[in-house]
Structures are given as structure tokens and as C-alpha cells.
């Protein structure tokens, strides 16, 4: 399927959000996805990459992909794509956040860096179906204030009375008025979430996830209440190419959304 790049938003020095629109308008109606799913994004000539959809299907018409410049293809994407260019996408693939299980629960989102992208999809979904969910808390951290994604949208969330937004950066900065410290520390010291009736959805760099999971353990969360999305190199998204194999699990088919309980059962390879 061919998409046109509608808008490019420079989030941070190395992260851009690409707002995509189908070239063939009739596909817009058919293309439906749930928060947590991913697409295969291809820049013809450079290759394919896996990205999660960073917006919710409740906001139809366009969808977003946030891309961080990290490897060969992503560097090409940042360099070569301008507004109005055409790119190829396949998908959506993978599983999604357990929306039914989350109904009526308190939601705690814990994101770090580019890890907010998959969460943003669910946050938007939750905002648009606000009456289905109880309290929503968003804890978001980055290395510096310049590395925070979706700044405008976060401002919007802050003004939304039904959301509690907590921002943090790793090291103090002069103009920074919010919290300072790594995400797991803020989680324990500032957020102090209630354990009852709460589901935690977390995504971020591997090291953050590791310590966040430990912190959540200390706070008394049961492994089945902690949901995360896993990153693994993928090429086909169809359960054939064998790249995303962890044990007998295919991340592209059985994932990328796993609960901590499921992760514990997998061999330690991610």
C-alpha cells in the first residue's frame, strides 16, 4: 500500500513524526488498527523497517509513525523523505493492548524516550473513550528536555483535567521546572501509584524497562498487571522469517505486546 507523507513533525533532534495518508483514499476506510500494532514501513531502495503506529484509530484519516534516526534505513528516511513523498507500508501486524481487560481500570503509562510512541496510540484511544477507563496517569521521561517527544500534545494532555501528566529528565537543566531523575526513581518517589485495580503499560529503552519492572515489583504490582511492548528485529511481520524468534514465540505474531508474566516465561534473550 502506498502512502503519502502528509506532514513531518520534528520532535527532537533525531526523532521525526511522519503523518501518513493513503494515496488511494478508499483504503483509508479499510485500514483499521488497534493500539499496539505495528506496520512495515518501506522506503523503496533502502529497505523496510518495523514501526509501531503512534496514533489511535479513533482519529481517522491519517496515522503517525515516529521514527528515530538509528540505523541505515532510518537515516535514509530522515534524509530523503520530504512532505508529499510516497512511501510503502504493510500491515497492521502483531497483537494489541488488551483493551477489554483494561476497561474500568486505572491506567499508568510509563514511557521513556521514543518509547512513548506505542503508548501514545493507547493514550489517544483512552482519551477518546474516556468514560471506559478510570484514572489515567502518564509518567514520561527522557535524557534531556530536548529529547521529549510530542511536546505540543503533552501540553494538551496537561490541560486535560482527567489526566495526570508527570514529566522527568535525567539531569537537571536551568529552565526545567518539572521533575528530575530517572523514570524508575520518579515512579517510586513521586508517582506512588495505587496497586489496586491498576494496570501499568510501559515501553522504553531496555535498561529503563529492566529497572522499571524491578521498581514495579517493589511497589507490589503483580506481573500480570504489567504490560510492555517488546522490540525485536523483524523483517516479514508474518511469522516466517524467523528473526523475531524468542524461544518458540514469534514476537511479530504473538507480540509485540506482552505482559510481564508472559515475558518471565520466555528465555532471557531480549
Amino acid at each position, binding site marked *: 500500500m502506498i502512502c503519502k507523507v502528509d506532514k513531518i513533525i520534528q520532535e527532537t533532534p533525531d526523532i521525526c513524526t511522519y503523518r501518513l495518508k493513503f494515496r488511494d483514499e478508499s483504503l483509508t476506510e479499510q485500514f483499521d488498527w488497534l493500539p499496539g500494532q505495528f506496520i512495515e514501513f518501506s522506503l523503496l531502495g533502502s*529497505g*523496510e523497517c518495523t514501526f509501531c503506529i503512534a496514533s489511535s484509530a479513533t482519529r481517522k484519516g491519517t496515522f503517525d509513525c515516529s521514527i528515530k534516526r538509528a540505523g541505515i534505513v532510518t537515516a535514509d528516511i530522515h534524509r530523503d523523505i520530504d512532505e508529499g513523498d510516497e512511501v510503502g507500508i504493510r500491515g497492521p501486524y502483531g497483537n494489541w493492548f488488551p483493551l477489554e481487560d483494561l476497561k474500568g481500570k486505572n491506567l499508568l503509562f510509563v514511557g521513556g524516550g521514543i518509547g512513548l510512541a506505542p503508548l501514545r496510540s493507547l493514550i489517544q484511544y483512552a482519551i477518546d473513550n474516556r468514560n471506559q477507563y478510570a484514572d489515567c496517569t502518564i509518567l514520561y521521561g527522557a535524557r534531556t528536555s530536548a529529547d521529549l517527544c510530542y511536546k505540543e500534545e503533552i501540553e494538551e494532555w496537561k490541560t486535560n483535567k482527567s489526566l495526570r501528566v508527570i514529566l522527568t529528565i535525567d539531569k537537571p537543566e536551568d529552565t526545567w521546572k518539572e521533575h528530575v531523575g530517572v523514570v524508575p526513581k520518579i515512579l517510586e518517589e513521586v508517582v506512588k501509584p495505587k496497586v489496586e485495580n491498576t494496570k501499568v503499560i510501559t515501553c522504553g529503552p531496555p535498561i529503563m524497562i529492566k529497572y522499571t519492572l524491578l521498581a514495579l515489583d517493589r511497589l507490589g504490582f503483580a506481573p500480570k498487571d504489567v504490560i510492555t511492548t517488546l522490540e525485536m528485529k523483524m523483517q516479514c511481520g508474518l511469522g516466517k*522469517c524467523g528473526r523475531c524468534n524468542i524461544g518458540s514465540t514469534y514476537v511479530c505474531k504473538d507480540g509485540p505486546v506482552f505482559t510481564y508474566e508472559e515475558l518471565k516465561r520466555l528465555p532471557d534473550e531480549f
Partner: protein
Amino acid sequence: MKLTTYSTDQAGLQAFYEAIIRAHDTYGPVEKFGKFDFKKVNSLSECDPESPIPRTMSVKPLFFPKSAKVMKYTATSAGTELSDTAEDPLAGKRVILGVKHCDARGLQVLDAVYKWDYIDTDYEKRRENTILISPRCDQAATHCFCTSLDYDLETLDAVDVAVINGADRKIYLQARTEKGETFLKENATGLTSANGSAEAEMKKQYETFAASFRLKMNYQEINERMQGQFDSPTFEEVPSSCVSCNTCAFVCPTCHCFKISDEKIRDKGVRYKSYDSCNNVYFTLMAGGHNPRPVKYRRWRQRAMHKFVYYKERFGVNLCIGCGKCTTSCPVNISIFEVVTKVASSMQE
């Protein structure tokens, strides 16, 4: 279903092969650089259906080629156009001569992953249109251990027609699938129906063949023991001499990992699907530098565990089929048999 068996002799078999080559698109093992490889043949003299094991490559490239075009595209300032590739040269009706039983089993094992969830139509079409004619080996090669695994080689229904040497230079052609049955009926000119002793003779041939194996393992036990061996130190020890090339995966009849890559000159480009191997350092290297399997033993562990545990867990069949091609082709002669038996037995220590 009762399947027919025909009997013939060496000359009759040659005539049977020749008739097939005349009438169908035929592939057979052709000698290249001193090793046998499956190529298209136009006469029987070009190939040797009874060529010995071990061979370089299995029949895998005829179903899952080393590099296949997925799609073509033109990307100009005016817009992007995608188009299908030219017709798949491997999709037509064809016959493959001289497939070993293990190779055929390899395809059967691959069916599980290709027909899971998303169905790979190219692969399915190639499988459907192909008749496998397969002589049963008389003698095991050094690294074979196919009889020890989780399938019954004697009555294997992965091959369409089995060619079995009987007593007194007699040769039996036995249909194993319905596809093979119809094929044999159509091409059975000059063949006679087998008489009563055929069954016994074929059984005897299998017994002598099975007795010629040097490598034997207790599959059930190995599979069970391997399950708990994820952290076994033996994985670090035995394959330490691995040089991280991709040979074992590329020659393996059941390795199915691939990569997708683009090649573009000016405005036009092609997207390819090519072999890849989990022994490659870059296999799981993600953009940004995180690699879940950065060291050799972890990649080897993935390979061995996938072959003997994970695939069985997921699809119910063992991925390794015991053909020994990886061991024969390995630059440093690492034997997967040795690795798994050592890992499985390391638990007792």
C-alpha cells in the same frame, strides 16, 4: 488407502526416468564442482538420480530459492508504481528425480511454518505442482542420523514415489501419496505390478539400511532434556570453534530464515527475499546497536534449541531431520549431533 507398488529392473528404471524427462519439466542432481546439486535436466545422462549422499544442497532451493524477487517498483517524482515480478519459474508442473528421503521430509517440516497463519502462496504452489521421486538410500553416510528422529522413514509420506532396491536386482516403485499414485498410473508404461514378496523385500532393505547407521540418538529423551538446558555451559564449550559463517543454515533443508532487501538503480528497483542465517552476527542486530545475541554461543544456542525444541513446541514436528549436511559442509566440521547429545547429557553431571 492402499497404494500401488510396481516392480522393474535397472534398465526399466532408466527407461522410466527417460520417459519422465521427455514428458515433464524435470530437475535432477547434477554434478557441479565435484558435488551434486539440483538443476534442470534435458536428458538422463546429465544427472544421476542415485548420486550418493552427502550432497551440497538439498531440494530446498527449488522451493525456497536463495534469492527470489518479491516485487518490482519504479519510483519517480511523478509517483510510485508497484508491480508483480515476472512469472515464477519454479511454479510450473515439474518432477524432481533423486530426492533423498530426508530432503523430502525437510519440505514436509517446512510446510508447517509456511502454512501457519499467513500462507505463502508461492511456496504452496511450488509444492503442489511438484512430484518428488525419491530413491531410498542403501547405506547411511557418516553424519546421517535420520532414523533416530521423530518420523518414520520407512513409510514416509513426504515423497510421492519411493524407489526401493529389492532382492535380485529388482527395483520397486511405490506410490506414497495420492499425487504419486496418479502420477505412477499415468507413467507406468513398461512397469509391472509388484508380486507378493515385494513387501518383505522392501522391509528387509529398510532393515539393512537402518542397521548401517553409526549415529543414533534417543529422540524423546534428547528433546525432553534439551528443554531445560537453556543455560547449559556446554553451549559455550562445544561450538567455540564456530567461525560464524552461514553455511550450515544455507545448506540445511529446513532452515527458512530470510531477509528482505532492496536493490535500486536510478528509478527502478527490485525487492528480494534471500537466505539468512541465525549464526550471522547481524541477524538480530537492531538499529541503535542493541543485539540480543551478540556472542557466538548465544547464536548457536538459538540454532540448536530451535532445531530440537522450539519448533517441536510450536508446530509439533522436529525441525532437524538428521541429514548431516551442515556437518559435512561446516568449514570446521562442528557436528550438530555432537552438540545436542553433549548438551542433553550435560544435565546429569
